[in-house]
């Protein structure tokens, strides 16, 4: 009987955990039948199990919830917010009682009647409860959790490395068998051995791992409750990236994560009124995402709230004697934000019950650092905060992509890989801008870098046969990594790499291929950083916000923002640009009236943009617009960035210039038509 009870408790706990995300999702979309069914199944199971045990309160609670939900299922009733809240309250009460029973305590002395009454709060006549569809025993089995045992982790490690050694021995044996002429009679047993070993390996490698969703599943509910309490509206986006995490690690990171999320909702995201006043959507966005790399799991918590006021933090730190004014001047933005983790410092104006003031972040950081992790905070006042939690992984299986450049093989975690495109001309299109390769995939322009360039190795592949691995970084930025070959998708056991190699900044671990040869696993963010591909948090949040505001009607147009020889910034629509190139100043001719021409491919093309200057250096940067009949070259001093603008935002000034807003500044915008018209006017003047 005790066993049965323990199983009932364990089953209920597991279901409760899995359920909390479902309830919130159901609230967001009450017509979601699958979610409703999941919740119904839970209360039904609890009710059913109560039949075996003497738990009258659980039975009454689950019975009432089941009845109400059955009405919704039968479409006799709509799932309105009051019903959802009432069901949530009942599930919470069930959880309390289950915990109490599990710990062998008295059931909490609370009155269940108001909760049950709240189910009918919508004022509808309670329809006679129909008999709930009975569940077959098989269905019930399915939802029960399998029995578990506890094992010391070292033992698992030993078993695991034993199995790995066995796999290497198997491969060696396979090579030797292949060297034998003719039949050896060993093939069949060898194949059987291989199959068993593959199974065993699969099972062993999964033992320590659990999907990170188990950790994340409770967060939507938590954010919902918290935002209700604070009178805020928060939308939660969770992206678990198929990350698996060490069971032990889940427990260790849960509290720090909860704290960071509470902080983001409490101090980061503003009230709807404040958000409206700041020109944002009323609903705040909280993104929780995870990525797995060789020896680290990266968990990002990104909000689009008011950000951290770094100046205020610094002022407080100086006032409290933590820093001298001179030291404070030397801090970079990230170090300033890190001050929020110092004991006693917080910029929150009021102390709230939710996350307190200044208490906690120091503890959070200490706990993360204790397990060898780190916390990085990027924030832009007014537009949001990104907290990046890096936690180590002593042992992990990473679904990976093995890629090649030259003769070398590297692994990259598949969770970073968005897509792979071939340089075929139909799917994508490639251009050089300011010495950097950009590819366009389905209208999106993506900066690229060759892996051989980053690692200083030789590429042995002609450019047109290269493959581009599109990589999505934790923050959401995408860049392209050009490689010679993609070898395989495989699940690799990644082990930490020696500190001396870790220090290069390009690797996070090592792994072995089936033939036993070691392969380094790339540190994707290290590669991105070295290629200058990590952009500021700000740009991204702005873009994101725009997308969310009017997802359907806006088509953003890419533009190249450049600085002219007169020092001012201008933008040109990317689609108008035929080519960007550098030409020797020898081919340049400037006339007395300030007009200029340049020889391109044996033709004389009018050149504008020099602002009367004749560049000293041997080469001049220019872009070309137009077609073969009418072409114009535009000289510029430097490229500032690539931007996207909304055509609806473009205004025409009194002087006939088209202006667009980039980063809050008005910037003159060109397209091919205006430029060619100007060019024609200039050429005409010359003639």
């Amino acid at each position, binding site marked *: 009987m005790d066993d049965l009870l323990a199983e009932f408790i364990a089953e209920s706990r597991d279901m409760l955990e899995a359920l909390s995300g479902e309830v919130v999702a159901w609230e967001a979309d009450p017509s979601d039948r699958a979610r409703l069914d999941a919740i119904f199944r839970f209360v039904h199971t609890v009710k059913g199990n109560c039949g075996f045990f003497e738990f009258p309160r659980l039975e009454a609670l689950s019975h009432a919830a089941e009845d109400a939900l059955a009405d919704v299922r039968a479409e006799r009733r709509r799932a309105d917010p009051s019903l959802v809240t009432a069901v949530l309250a009942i599930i919470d009460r069930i959880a309390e009682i289950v915990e109490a029973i599990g710990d062998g305590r008295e059931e909490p002395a609370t009155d269940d009647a108001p909760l049950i009454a709240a189910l009918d709060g919508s004022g509808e006549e309670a329809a006679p409860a129909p008999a709930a569809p009975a569940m077959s025993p098989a269905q019930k089995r399915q939802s029960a959790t399998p029995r578990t045992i506890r094992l010391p982790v070292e033992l698992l490690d030993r078993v695991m490395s034993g199995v790995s*050694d066995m*796999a290497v021995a198997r491969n060696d044996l396979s090579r030797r068998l292949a060297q034998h002429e003719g039949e050896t009679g060993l093939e069949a047993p060898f194949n059987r051995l291989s199959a068993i070993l593959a199974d065993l390996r699969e099972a062993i490698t999964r033992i320590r791992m659990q999907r990170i969703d188990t950790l994340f599943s409770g967060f939507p509910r938590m954010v919902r409750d918290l935002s209700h309490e604070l009178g805020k509206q928060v939308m939660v986006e969770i992206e678990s990236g198929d990350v698996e995490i060490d069971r032990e690690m889940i427990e260790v990171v849960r509290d720090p994560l909860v704290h960071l999320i509470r902080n983001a909702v409490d101090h980061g995201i503003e009230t709807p009124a404040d958000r409206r006043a700041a020109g944002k959507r009323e609903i705040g966005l909280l993104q929780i995402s995870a990525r797995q790399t060789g020896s680290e799991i990266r968990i990002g918590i990104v909000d689009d709230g008011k950000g951290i006021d770094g100046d205020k933090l610094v002022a407080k730190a100086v006032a409290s004697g933590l820093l001298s004014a001179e030291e404070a001047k030397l801090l970079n933005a990230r170090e300033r934000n890190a001050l929020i983790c110092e004991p006693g410092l917080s910029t929150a104006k009021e102390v709230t019950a939710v996350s307190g003031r200044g208490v906690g972040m120091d503890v959070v950081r200490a706990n993360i650092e204790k397990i060898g992790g780190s916390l990085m905070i990027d924030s832009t006042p007014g537009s949001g905060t990104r907290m990046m939690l890096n936690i180590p992984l002593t042992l992990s299986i990473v679904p990976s992509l093995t890629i090649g450049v030259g003769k*070398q093989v590297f692994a990259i975690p598949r969770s970073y890989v968005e897509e792979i495109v071939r340089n075929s001309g139909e799917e994508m299109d490639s251009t050089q801008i300011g010495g950097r390769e950009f590819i366009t995939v389905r209208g999106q322009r993506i900066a690229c870098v060759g892996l051989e360039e980053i*690692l200083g190795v030789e590429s042995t592949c002609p450019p047109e046969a290269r493959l581009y691995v599109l990589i999505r970084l934790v923050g959401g930025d995408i860049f392209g990594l050009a490689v010679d070959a993609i070898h395989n998708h495989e699940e690799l056991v990644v082990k930490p790499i020696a*500190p001396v*190699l870790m220090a*290069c900044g390009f690797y996070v671990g090592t792994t072995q291929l089936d033939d036993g*040869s*070691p392969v380094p696993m790339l540190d994707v963010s290290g590669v991105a950083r070295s290629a200058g591909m990590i952009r500021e948090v700000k740009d991204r949040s702005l873009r994101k916000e725009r997308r969310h505001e009017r997802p359907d009607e806006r088509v953003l147009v890419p533009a190249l923002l450049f600085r002219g020889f007169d020092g001012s910034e201008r933008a040109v629509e990317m689609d108008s640009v035929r080519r960007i190139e550098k030409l020797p100043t020898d081919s340049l001719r400037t006339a007395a009236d300030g007009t200029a021409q340049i020889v391109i491919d044996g033709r004389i093309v009018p050149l504008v943009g020099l602002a009367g200057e004749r560049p000293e250096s041997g080469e001049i940067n220019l872009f070309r617009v137009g077609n073969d009949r009418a072409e114009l070259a535009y000289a510029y001093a430097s490229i500032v960035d690539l931007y996207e603008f909304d055509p609806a935002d473009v205004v025409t000034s009194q002087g006939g210039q088209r202006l667009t807003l980039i980063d809050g500044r008005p910037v003159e915008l060109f397209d091919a038509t205006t430029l060619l018209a100007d060019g024609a006017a200039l050429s005409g003047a010359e003639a």
Partner: protein
Amino acid sequence: MDQSLLLVSIGGELAGIDSAIIRSVVELEAITPVPRAPDHIAGLAALRSRAMTVVDCRRSLELPPLEGAAKALAVVVEIDEFLYALVVDAVEEVVPLDGDPAEVRADLLPGWTRAALGMIETSAGPALMLDPARLIQGPAKREAA
């Protein structure tokens, strides 16, 4: 008295490595190069199912490379749960180690000075006792990555 020392030769000289951290002596089959690694790190190699970081001792000691070696011979040591294969010219013998290494009373070549713990007298003659951790660390000046 239980301590012993593995004598190896590197660059024509005799050197000793404390045998307590030595796991194995192997001939390296294949070495996977690791781009952008420090000069003295030859790459990665496998010892059964574990990866080893291959350290070229000659480079680490700033000595000229060995000519005409067919296969790299390496002493495998374990430090902080990582395996390192220290590539040496030859492995000589195991000798008992008694007493602490003595301070070297002369200026050595810079590479040796950095990696040596001191001088020891052995039955095979005087040798420098090496600190594998310093061999792995390599010369202080790093190639700009």
